[in-house]
């Protein structure tokens, strides 16, 4: 019996193709059963996320199994001619290595992301409970989860934040620790500030104040986020109580000056204050960052930090691949690697 994998992902197929193959979480078990019920197939499993759908099969004849699977999909999803070109097909150790790469986040759109680990685990659990897996897939997936954990603990593949919003939230946590005691003010009700503020709230920030030139828009956003709206000419007063200020107005000149912050310092008892300026042109005068207890980060600095994290993750790929090869060799799953790579 041989292992094979057929799949498509964000690199091989556009979203309008991927969405047709998507399988809901509740249907993963049934989909796996359908695979294992095919002639000549003893085990089956489906992984489905927003960026990939992959079918893992154990069959006596791989060529026959690929053909059967593709005709099964053609019948079920009614795929157009040419869609099959989006598929990648892997066998034996290449399929095993691919699974380890997927579980480790090496094949993800956001390199090193951790969500995929849980998603694959959920798919495996569904197939296991449906009775669609047995010796080969059980052993393979258990091993892949072990490899994924090892890759994440022994390399820096998941270190650092790779998006501006996450960098800002990580910095807020570096300054304030748990954000449950922190209050946040948003200047300007734009999309970027909304996303960043939402990240802070999701990590526990206690309350949100929204100040916007259009008060109605401030009320709208504040209601959406469970916070309070503030009139734009009153934000200096709110500065006395907040810990984080996210600014993203469309104003062509700075709106926050040192003179705006100085009066609030005494009332704040000189507690640390974190300014996140994600506006272009900048909303916050750089002189504000010279105040002792103020930490000021603008969009360029945040983007540089995110870029650096992405770069350092890229540098970890070889080390991750090495760990995967060693671990697969230990369990006699690794073979000679295809010099052309993964074929995606």
């Amino acid at each position, binding site marked *: 019996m041989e292992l094979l994998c057929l799949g498509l992902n964000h690199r091989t197929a556009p979203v309008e193709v991927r969405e047709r193959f998507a399988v809901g979480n509740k249907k993963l078990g049934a989909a796996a059963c359908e695979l294992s019920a095919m002639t000549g197939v003893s085990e089956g499993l489906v992984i489905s996320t927003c960026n990939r759908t992959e079918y893992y099969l154990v069959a006596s004849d791989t060529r026959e199994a690929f053909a059967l699977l593709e005709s099964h999909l053609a019948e079920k999803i009614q795929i157009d001619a040419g869609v099959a070109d989006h598929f990648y097909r892997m066998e034996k150790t290449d399929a095993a290595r691919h699974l380890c790469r997927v579980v480790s986040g090496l094949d993800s759109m956001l390199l090193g992301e951790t969500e995929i680990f849980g998603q694959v685990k959920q798919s495996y659990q569904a197939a296991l409970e449906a009775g669609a897996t047995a010796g080969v897939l059980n052993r393979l997936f258990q091993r892949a989860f072990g490899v994924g954990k090892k890759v994440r603990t022994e390399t820096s593949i998941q*270190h650092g934040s790779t998006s501006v919003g996450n960098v800002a939230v990580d910095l807020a946590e570096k*300054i304030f620790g748990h954000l449950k005691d922190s209050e946040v003010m948003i200047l300007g009700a734009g999309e970027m500030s909304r996303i960043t503020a939402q990240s802070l709230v999701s990590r526990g920030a206690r309350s949100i104040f929204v100040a916007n030139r259009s008060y109605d828009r401030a009320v709208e956003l504040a209601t959406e986020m469970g916070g309070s709206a503030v009139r734009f000419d009153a934000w200096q007063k709110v500065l006395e109580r907040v810990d984080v200020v996210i600014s993203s107005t469309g104003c062509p000149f700075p709106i926050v000056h040192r003179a705006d912050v100085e009066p609030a310092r005494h009332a704040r008892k*000189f507690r*640390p204050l974190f300014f996140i300026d994600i506006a272009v042109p900048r909303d916050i005068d750089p002189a504000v960052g010279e105040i002792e207890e103020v930490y000021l980060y603008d969009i360029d600095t945040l983007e540089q930090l995110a870029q650096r994290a992405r770069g350092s993750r890229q540098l970890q790929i070889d080390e991750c691949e090495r760990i995967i090869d060693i671990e697969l060799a230990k369990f006699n799953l690794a073979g000679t690697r295809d010099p052309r790579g993964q074929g995606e």
Partner: protein
Amino acid sequence: MDRWLLIASTLLALIGSVRGGLAVHRGRRSRSTVLWLGAAMVCQLAFLAHRGQLRGVCPLADRGEILVFLAWSLTLFYLLVGPAYRISLLGVFSAPVVVVFQAVALVPGALDAQPRGITGGNPWHEMHSATSVLGYGALALASVAGVMFLVLDRQLKQHHLQSGLFQRLPPVRELLVSMVRLLWLGGGLLSLGILAGMLMPRDSQADHHMIAGHLIAALVVWTGYAVLLGVHRVRGLTGRRLALLTVAWFILSLGVFAFI
């Protein structure tokens, strides 16, 4: 034998310091520092117990003993405070201070080679010495937290966020909270020490002058910390100023030992 115990303790703290520093440099958690400092503390305790037996009183009779007691007190507070606040890195910063204190204690002349037993010891005197040095231990650890804050503050201000040290340092607010709590604890112990010192019997005029000079120096130190904590509580202080004053005042306050 006591000298060998002190050398062993210093070496253990040195190993903890170097291993911790290397771990931080590589961006890893310095898990073993707490163990090395724990082992160093066992040797400190054995040293102090041996000296205490020889003296017949709390071993704070020469500068070497005071420094070792201070290093023990710092280690004790680190082991108590570090895990409670999840400040594993505190050990990496504390271990070098322990090494320095004990290395100075090992300098010839700092420790009496033949410690003489002290007769007629007085409980107020012993309480004064012990609580004061314990207080100094807490204040030393507050200074260590202050140094950690200054490093983190500088890195955050200059946007240098890639080092292993930055990744491992605890959050700004956590450092400030532990610094202030240690200052209150140290200040409280120092107050007890001074009160006990005031109740110490003075057998002669020379005794009177010596104790008075010592207590005046201790009161100056105490007043400095009281002002620092008072200003922080009432008016507030930026983290940088609080940390700088904590470190500077601790270094200056070590001068009080010149009056012993």
